[in-house]
């Protein structure tokens, strides 16, 4: 059982603060939360909205159906009222010139004036919301004390109570259950995963929607004793990270589409110098500047082979905040263990949606640096950074680690010592050394997560952030006895094939669901396995597909 509240207004009207406060209250009450954002690339004006779903069980995606709208302007009412459920309600300030059935016009601003701070009118609205859902006020004052300075806390609390008193119960009360969860978004989960796994240096250039990772890390910079550096451009960002990694710290960089494109050449640098590196691309709709604050999964094909020439790499797409946390830590280990590039794919939807989940288990996180110890080089021998070994992985030393041993890395083709070579034989050996690691990575890959019916007729395939919407669609379809299963890929390169080949043999129809135009996962699947998807559900308008769209399309177009 869950409800969906939409808060809408123009940029700068304060819907972010409002939604933070409301979701915090609901979360502390013990509800599960799923909050997603729809915002424009501007600082003031326009139309933005945030949706908060809350309920008794964990929630995996956003919903197109609305129970309650909190409208900060007329626009919001007009744009969203169509999506209101039968029993749905709208609340807004009485000053807004709008009329609709189910509309409560409340004296919110009036209350704020009376309380003595014009900004608290939103809190009055929250009061009204709590009442509508019959949620008791108990303990909320504590939350306010955390959220606001003491004077403000008081005024807000007054406004809350005044709002609460304005209106009657409306929705059926549901008893919250879980209290132990955390409430986090994808960017924060990535940052926390990186922190846990010991990232000491993060360099980046601001770019929506990836900036949140850097911002969170910057907040912890001194406490964690790490360095977060805003670079002059993305090329500097990745090259600084490579330099730091070469010098011996765990380093990472992150960006979005255009910034990732600028890093392309340097991906090859990490590859040929065998410098461990994790790069996260928080996707947004391209091409070029595209839609800066919206969502898309259109960089998959690109990142699989980004950079001229050939290097081993691993590409992991993140499916949820929990996945984001654990996979970021895993990526950092894989990068150092194999001395390779690992690319993480997130997107604006995942970056910004906030979900309540199980607290992270920090004991599950291990740190495997893969740095050789001093004994690996004999005293009277030169150190060979690119020593040919059976696996392709050479013992990695850090500059300065051993007295009078030096470490040399090179972006040209090189011999075992790192010196430039033009030898055809050495070249061949070095290519094979590096590409052997691509094979090795196959031992690390994780099969996609399977959801749904045990013997499905229809197999959905997806990757990354569509996990939540697909999960909910699959459940709904199965509840109607439509036998659907879904494989949601996290690891996409090297592509895990086992489950896919197993299910593909059994089902009648395979449908790829992706937030892009060209069906990039489907292309990859065909390239790697020959399996051709029969149908595609593709969306490329910058808005995340919801479970109901998937559900409906399956019913109307696939069945």
């Amino acid at each position: 059982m869950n409800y969906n509240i939409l808060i809408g207004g123009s940029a700068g009207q304060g819907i972010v603060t409002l939604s933070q406060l409301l979701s915090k209250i609901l979360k502390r009450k013990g509800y599960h939360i799923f909050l997603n954002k729809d915002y424009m690339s501007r600082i003031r004006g326009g139309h933005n909205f945030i949706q908060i779903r809350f309920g008794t069980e964990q929630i995996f995606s956003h919903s197109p159906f609305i129970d309650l709208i909190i409208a900060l302007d007329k626009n919001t009412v007009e744009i969203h009222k169509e999506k209101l459920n039968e029993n749905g309600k709208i609340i807004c300030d009485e000053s807004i010139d709008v009329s609709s059935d189910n509309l409560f016009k409340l004296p919110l601003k009036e209350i704020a004036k009376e309380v003595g701070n014009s900004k608290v009118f939103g809190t009055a609205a929250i009061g009204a919301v709590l009442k509508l859902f019959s949620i008791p006020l108990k303990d909320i004052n504590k939350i306010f004390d955390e959220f606001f300075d003491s004077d403000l806390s008081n005024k807000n609390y007054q406004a809350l109570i005044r709002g609460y008193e304005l209106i009657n119960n409306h929705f059926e009360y549901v008893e919250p259950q879980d209290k132990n969860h955390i409430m986090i978004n994808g960017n924060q989960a990535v940052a926390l995963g990186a922190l846990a796994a010991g990232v000491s240096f993060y360099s980046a250039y601001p770019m929506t929607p990836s900036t949140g990772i850097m911002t969170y890390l910057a907040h912890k910079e001194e406490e964690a004793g790490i360095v977060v550096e805003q670079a002059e451009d993305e090329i500097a960002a990745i090259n600084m990270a490579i330099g730091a990694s070469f010098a011996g710290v765990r380093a990472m960089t992150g960006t979005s589409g255009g910034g990732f494109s600028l890093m392309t050449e340097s991906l090859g640098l990490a590859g040929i110098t065998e410098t461990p590196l994790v790069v996260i691309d928080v996707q947004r709709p391209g091409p070029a500047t595209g839609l800066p604050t919206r969502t898309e999964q259109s960089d998959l094909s690109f990142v699989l082979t980004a950079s001229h020439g050939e290097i081993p790499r691993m590409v992991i797409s993140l499916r949820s905040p929990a996945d984001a946390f654990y996979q970021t830590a895993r990526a950092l280990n894989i990068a150092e263990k194999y001395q390779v590039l690992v690319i993480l794919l997130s997107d604006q939807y995942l970056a910004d949606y906030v979900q309540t989940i199980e607290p992270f288990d920090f004991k599950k996180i291990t740190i495997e640096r893969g740095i050789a110890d001093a004994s690996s080089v004999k005293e009277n021998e030169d150190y060979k950074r690119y020593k040919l070994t059976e696996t392709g992985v050479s013992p990695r030393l850090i500059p300065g680690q051993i007295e009078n041993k030096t470490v040399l890395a090179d972006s040209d083709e090189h011999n075992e010592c790192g010196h430039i070579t033009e030898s055809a034989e050495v070249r061949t050996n070095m290519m094979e050394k590096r590409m052997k690691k691509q094979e090795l990575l196959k031992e690390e890959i994780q099969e996609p997560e399977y959801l749904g019916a045990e013997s499905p007729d229809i197999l959905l395939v997806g990757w990354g952030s569509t996990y939540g919407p697909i999960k909910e669609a699959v459940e709904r379809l199965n509840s109607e006895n439509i036998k659907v299963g879904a494989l949601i890929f996290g690891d996409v390169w090297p592509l895990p094939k086992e489950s896919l080949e197993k299910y593909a043999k059994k089902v009648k129809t395979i449908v790829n669901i992706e937030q892009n135009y060209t069906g990039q996962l489907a292309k990859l699947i065909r390239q790697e396995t020959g399996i051709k998807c029969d149908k595609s559900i593709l969306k490329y308008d910058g808005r995340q597909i919801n479970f109901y769209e998937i559900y409906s399309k399956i019913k109307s177009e696939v069945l």
Partner: protein
Amino acid sequence: MTTDINLFNSMDENAWCPGCGNFGILNALKEALSELDLKPHEVLITSGIGQAAKLPHYINVNGFNGLHGRAVPPAVGAKIANKNLKVIVNTGDGDSYGEGGNHIIHNIRRNIDITHFVHDNQIYGLTKGQGSPTTAKGQKTTLQLEGVKVDPFNPISFAISLGCSFVARAFSGDKEHLVYVMKEAIKHKGYALVDILQPCVSFNKVNTYRWYKERVYKLDKNYDCTNKEEAFKKAFEWGDEGIPIGIIYKEKKSTYIDRTPQLNSKPPLINREWKPVYAEKFMEDFI
């Protein structure tokens, strides 16, 4: 105390042309490091791509031979990672001022403690003689057949204007002086830029050893390198009126590391103690 200079010798075969000005720089660098009593494992030299940029192969210290134009950012990353390393950038004029121009601007602003030696042969050597940012206006090249038509880049006035805390010029044909400037630059705390005039015997037939020798002159003992106005004047002296070599501008300023408490008051980042559970407390942000 000095380090045995032979410890800096590399086994790699040298690919520079006989007579190239790069040899003078390489030899001076070994001497400077030796006289500063630095050990091979204490030094990291980064470079980009070009003839000059091959230097890390010809000296036995830690080396990172990266991408064209990107010699500086890995140096900065490495210095942040391990503040105990002596980090030096050795690379070409095209690499530093052409493809890599943006990185100098902003690392001068960081005043991070690295030394940047530009092998300024006023030409693109490795790609066979196109004009570089410092090629003289009017000079004919393999690509600019009617002569370069844009003004040359002035690294000295550029660096001073951005507040670089150590700006010098030297000449690869005057080893003693070069060693002196190198040592001062390496000892300097902050971003030190040294533009080193370096004859390219294969592609720059204008700025030859002789051309430089006839023009360079050492800055007077009384020259006050802390006076910015004077420094600008010296920065614009060039060509037939004489080319001043030496430390043109110098200023005491806190460095990037001084300003970063996580680095300044702590052991180097590579020695940071960390366990995953230390991050557990950050979950409080999400309750």
